[in-house]
């Protein structure tokens, strides 16, 4: 009977001129084949990229695959998330995806987790040989990135123990564009090293939204930011509802409000589709781009696990809109990266700025984007975003000037929910 792993077998059973240190399998010693069958891989996300990743890894010889996703299936997923059918709408993605793969591909043992990545700690993550992400969220990427860094053990000379380094492959897509990257935490550029590559979402100045709307997007944000706050259209008992972008009643209310405002101002172009797009920050997505990026991610996972060829070092950009454009390069690791850096990040600021102003700068800086930091100085809390008790105790410091609180050259230790697993040290220099 022909070997099911015939195609993979050809590659792991022969040597490549591009991988001089790879020892091919023999029938007596199928060490790579055995490793593929026994190692554990984690896929984060069971959506557009996740479905592809599950299929790809299961058809590359991997058997023990875990998948995490906290979402349920929506109709708009069906144009690309091919493990789901119309009758699956509402069910958890991870569960349905795992079932489909285990049924279709013999030997596959996919274990689903319908929960958030934050629900697990290092005892869960350390069991995996490689972690591959098909996420649609920067905060989630930052979180897992900081978790993997925090899991690394260092010796007395600050050298990382290679056995505690888990490679992370990360993919992202938008329309016809996408990117694949390979992260070896503390050895190569991590998510935080390249944070400026992910600019924050587009918002419009509040005065434009409030007083001088000109384009349909202004009218839509008026409805979602100003009108909703003012009119509190939906209540649940005593609680005023926050906008639930998956609730069609909420979306319809926003659409009609936006349309009315647009009509009053002679502004064309408010449609239900645009309203959804702005409020939900919808990114266009198609099967083909997801296939490309997920496949290149899976290819990297395969090469990392088998050593049959060199690994991507470390970023491939892809754009299929005008011709086919790919660009592969090494993104440089930052010495002073707040997550994986060895030297401390310097921060220059005037001593006259208040603590509150400083904290705003932490949020606005494209390299930091820290939205809810808690700061300690000399072991004592300077400002705590949470819990409420500590917030009350420290909030008075917000109005004080930095010069009154610390001296130039001081080190402040920060934590932030986006990087809850690492403590960041900033060296403050007064200018």
């Amino acid at each position: 009977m022909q070997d099911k792993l015939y195609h993979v077998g050809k590659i792991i059973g022969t040597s490549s001129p591009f991988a001089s240190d790879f020892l091919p399998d023999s029938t007596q010693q199928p060490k790579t084949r055995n490793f593929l069958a026994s190692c554990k891989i984690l896929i984060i996300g069971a959506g557009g990229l996740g479905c592809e990743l599950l299929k790809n890894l299961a058809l590359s010889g991997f058997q023990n695959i875990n998948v995490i996703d906290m979402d349920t299936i929506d109709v708009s997923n069906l144009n690309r998330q091919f493990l789901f059918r119309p009758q699956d709408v509402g069910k958890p993605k991870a569960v349905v995806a795992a079932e489909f793969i285990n049924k279709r591909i013999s030997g596959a043992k996919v274990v689903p987790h319908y929960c958030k990545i934050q629900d697990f700690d290092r005892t869960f993550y350390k069991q995996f040989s490689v972690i591959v992400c098909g996420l649609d969220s920067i905060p989630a990427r930052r979180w897992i990135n900081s978790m993997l860094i925090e899991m690394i053990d260092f010796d007395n000379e600050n050298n990382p123990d290679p056995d505690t380094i888990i490679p992370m492959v990360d993919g992202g897509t938008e329309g016809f564009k996408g990117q694949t990257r390979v992260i070896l935490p503390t050895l190569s550029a991590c998510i935080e090293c390249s944070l400026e590559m992910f600019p924050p979402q587009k918002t419009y100045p509040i005065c434009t939204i409030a007083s001088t709307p000109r384009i349909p997007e202004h009218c839509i944000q008026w409805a979602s930011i100003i009108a909703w706050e003012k009119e509190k259209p939906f209540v649940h008992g005593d609680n005023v509802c926050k906008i639930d972008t998956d609730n069609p009643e909420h979306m319809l209310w926003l659409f009609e409000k936006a349309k009315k405002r647009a009509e009053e101002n002679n502004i064309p172009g408010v449609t239900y589709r645009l309203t959804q797009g702005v409020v939900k920050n919808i990114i266009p997505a198609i099967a083909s781009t997801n296939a490309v990026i997920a496949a290149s991610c899976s290819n990297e996972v395969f090469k990392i696990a088998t050593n049959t060829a060199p690994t991507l070092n470390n970023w491939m950009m892809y754009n299929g809109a005008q011709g086919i454009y790919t660009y592969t390069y090494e993104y440089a690791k930052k010495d002073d990266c707040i997550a994986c850096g060895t030297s401390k990040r310097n921060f220059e600021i005037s001593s006259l700025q208040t603590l509150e102003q400083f904290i705003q700068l932490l949020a606005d800086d494209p390299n930091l984007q820290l939205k809810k930091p808690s700061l300690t100085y000399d072991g004592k809390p300077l400002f705590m975003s949470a819990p409420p008790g500590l917030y009350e105790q420290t909030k008075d410091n917000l109005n004080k000037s930095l010069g009154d609180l610390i001296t130039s050259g001081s080190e402040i230790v920060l934590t932030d929910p986006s990087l809850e697993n690492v403590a960041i040290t900033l060296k403050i220099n007064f200018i």
Partner: protein
Amino acid sequence: MATDKTKRYDRQLRLWGEEGQEKLETSKLLLIGANATGTELLKNLVLPGIGSFTLLDNKKVSAADTGNNFFVTTDSIGQSRAAVTSNLLQELNELVSANFVDEDPEKLIAETPEFFTKFTVVIVCELNENSLRKLAEQLYNAQIPLVIVQTCGFVASLRLVLREHTVLDSKPETPLEDLRLNAPFVELSDFVNSFDFDGIPANQHSHIPYLVILVKAITEWRKKHNGTLPQTRPEKTEFQNFVRAMARTPDEENFKEAAASCFKAYVIPRLPYNTAELFEHEKCKNLTPNSSRFWIIVRALKDFYYSDGQNILPLIGTIPDMHSDTEKFVKLQQIFHHKATQDFERVFNNVKSTTTSLNLPEISPEVVKSFCKNSNYLQLLSNKRLEDEYTSTTQLFELDNSDDNLHEKAFYLGLRAVTRFQVEYKRYPGENDPNADLPLFQNVLRSLLQQMQYPVDIVPEQIVQELCRSGGAELHNIASFMGGVGAQEVIKILTNQYIPLNNAFIYNGLTSTGSNFNIQ
């Protein structure tokens, strides 16, 4: 469109719109080779809702297939691969019509060529070279686009043969701004002149749109400079200072915007190269009763350009958002919209007189309007016959040792040698014994290179060895990657939006690099 479909296809409609979707849904695709690559490619077309597909393959599902092909199952081993994969692909989208033909593609190509000419696009993922060449001739004569994908271990190639493909909207990353700052049309001039820059109150002054500010500024500049525009660096700096000086206070956002955008005032609209090519094309110059809609409208655009347009294409009609109050901005938008409509009407009249004089059916205003809006983004791609590549006695593309993409281009030549080897030896190089096959493969490659007048050592030895040791292995990850790229190209071909590959691409999964190039 029915709400179910709108919801389901929402994420893709935001890219190619209802118009593009309609073209997908009326397409009939043929795939030859229900292997991993072919089925992955088709998956990415079934999901977004192509009209129908037909799978042509006469193999039986093997155990090896169950290891790399998602659209077969273990209990389907021994059954018709075409039937099994077609069924599991159909299951992805109930709106798509699935068909299969369990016959030998070589036989069909030799004996029933008319089978192939009823498809919109033909995709080949597994076919011997001789039959491929025959098929390519038939398709070229019938003006049917051909998409060819080949994988071998970590490397793969994509080749498109488009006899004549028209792009109706290239959808560039940064769309052109058509603001007419230094050649304002009458209504725009009137609007600008209606502003009393010196007299109006402060809060009005700080809401004058920068577009208006720049028209005024550049008009005044020209008066002071003999009608010329800023050209040298000192002149450009002077102009920017001139604009800045028009502000009353340093806080006025609109004047800051104007200063930052002042270069827009001395940009002169140019006829894009792609559009110029179309205007000079034989099919534009000579309209006949057989002329397509495309050429009739292009000609109408050309006639507009050289007369009413005064050497400028129809006004696009949209303006970017800019600091202003609602009333002024909306008024400005309306002025631009109105002028764009006037230009469109002139083009439309040209179209109407052509269709009338040639006794052809009318073309809808919507279609013409779309052409006017996208007149800067029209393109024509034309490829020669595939046979020209296979019989070529000159180099397909330039290649020397210093080429940035040496390995990718060398892999393309190597993959050509793989299919040539298959014709001669009826197996992949290295399929059974890589060591024994290596010298045979090297010989095949050498003759191929000599035929095309390449130096025989242009393909690095590592490349030759890598292809031979791969033994024709079809890795799922590589098949899936190419399935994505290939499907994306088919979508661009069907919708006439975005720009298709012109005309060859290599993916190197060893280094995760890609390269595209044109084969003449």
